[in-house]
């Protein structure tokens, strides 16, 4: 009862929603980069919200189901086939034993989430399956290795009575210009009026230096007088402004502490959009009310976590 990996692609990782409670000793939470797509993939299969999935960055990806199961694919806009028959993302499907799943290079977006009914069966390291290559934690090996050709990823075969599709209004479009909501916290109020104006009025471009740790952007430099700061805890989505004035947005695999001044944080909803952004994507920042963002996240969690199987997470 397993998925045989034929072609893992450049970066495929076992992920869940992250490893919590170890940031005080320097362990990053990690977890799925696009939790919106991740949540829907599990929801389509009636899985526990934290069930392990494969996060496929770019592609191509090819694998063989050794057992009949239901599976779901969410995230990037990809051409995917099951035994050569086209399947569309943001849906669940049924695979027979021996069926071959192929996922191509995304037309839009960057990451696809592959879930199987019941979740991939993978040992947890410090409470989570999440693979953090830099910290050598998680994944099938428990040592942070990515999914490789020839890997056999176990699951407990379970066929759902029917297949499902995510309602159209919840399927994001990955555009070439995106609006990103910013919670104006941390050192935001210590930046000059001029710097704030620049930040909100200019377009910033996603560079090719993007990974699970951080997204480096390029645009009109944001100035800040004081450069040396006492290192402090870095929250998800923090927008660092290093000496060159080019923003770095800190993602799931971020370091736990750091000493750069921060413009605030990208709100959770838009981090998922950013996680799908490819180099060249342009970003327009806008101010997002924090309590509105919290209410939205609260609502999302309530929706995705109401299942009876979510107690252990």
């Amino acid at each position, binding site marked *: 009862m397993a998925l045989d990996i034929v072609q893992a692609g450049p970066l495929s990782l076992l992920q869940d929603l992250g490893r919590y409670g*170890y940031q005080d000793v*320097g362990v990053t939470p990690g977890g799925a980069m696009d939790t919106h797509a991740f949540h829907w993939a599990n929801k389509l299969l009636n899985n526990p919200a934290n069930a392990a999935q494969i996060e496929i960055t770019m592609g191509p990806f090819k694998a063989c189901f050794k057992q009949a199961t239901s599976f779901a694919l969410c995230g990037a806009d990809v051409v995917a086939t099951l035994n050569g028959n086209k399947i569309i993302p943001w849906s669940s499907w049924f695979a027979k034993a021996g069926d071959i799943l192929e996922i191509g290079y995304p037309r839009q977006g960057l990451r696809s989430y592959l879930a199987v009914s019941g979740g991939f069966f993978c040992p947890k390291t410090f409470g989570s399956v999440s693979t953090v290559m830099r910290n050598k934690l998680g994944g099938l090996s428990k040592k942070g290795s990515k999914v490789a050709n020839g890997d056999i990823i176990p699951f407990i075969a379970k066929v759902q009575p029917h297949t499902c599709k995510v309602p159209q209004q919840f399927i994001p479009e990955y555009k070439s210009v995106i609006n990103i909501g910013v*919670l104006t916290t941390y050192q935001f109020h210590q930046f000059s009026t001029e710097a704030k104006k620049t930040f909100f009025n200019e377009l910033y471009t996603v560079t090719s230096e993007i990974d699970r740790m951080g997204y480096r952007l390029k645009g009109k430099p944001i100035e800040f007088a004081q450069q040396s700061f006492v290192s402090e*805890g*870095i*929250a*998800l989505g923090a927008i660092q402004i290093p000496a060159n004035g080019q923003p770095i947005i800190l993602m799931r695999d971020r370091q736990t*502490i*750091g000493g750069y001044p921060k413009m605030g944080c990208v709100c959770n909803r838009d981090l998922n959009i950013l996680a799908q952004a490819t180099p060249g994507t342009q970003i327009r920042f806008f101010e997002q009310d924090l309590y509105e963002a919290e209410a939205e996240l609260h609502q999302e969690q309530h929706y995705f976590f109401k299942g009876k199987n979510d107690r252990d997470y």
Partner: protein
Amino acid sequence: MQVNLVNENSVIIYFSDTVCAETTDEITYACQLFRSELNDTLSDIVPSYTSILLSCNLRKTGLQNFVINVRRVLNQLGNVGLTNLVRNKIVLPVYYGQEVALDHRDVSLHTGLAFSEIVKLHTEECYRVFAIGFTPGFAFLGNTPKQMTIPRKASPRLNVPKGSVAIADRQTAIYPSQSPGGWQVIGRTPIDLLDDSEECLSKFAMGDEVRFESIDKQTFLAMGGQL
């Protein structure tokens, strides 16, 4: 003390503007209180030199309620002081031999001190864990004696060997695993700082008292040290 909002589920509290042992004590004790008082509403806590970042589990609490409870703990902290602070004490054996003290020449040259003098200074001081970060279990210990102050290397090493004991500015640290790094390496410990057991990943915790003890090559090797 102000509780500052950070994102949908996080707040940060600044305790002081200065990095010192007193601030570390206060932060260490606040962490103990937060853990015992906030229970499962707390999802992560990141203490650092002068601040604590706290994240809540939004499935157990709302941000507004969380802030109220954080404030309540801070008031409690103000009332009881540091009387119940538990401080771990750690003594770490270090081999300061030239073959593992990769930067012994640069350190001597920069400080004008013989390397034996550097070792003496380094082992005489009692350090505190001011923060943990950079990599899992990487503890920033301060302060090193003023005479041995040295900046980071101009270009970082691509691979600092596991267990390397290093100094930079007024701080010292041990590399828990092989990693890139720019600190000046002056020795190596045979002790494994990362533990795979589920209870404690890192040997160090915020606020711990750390001393270094010089050992000879034979002892280093007998304790499992790798050259």
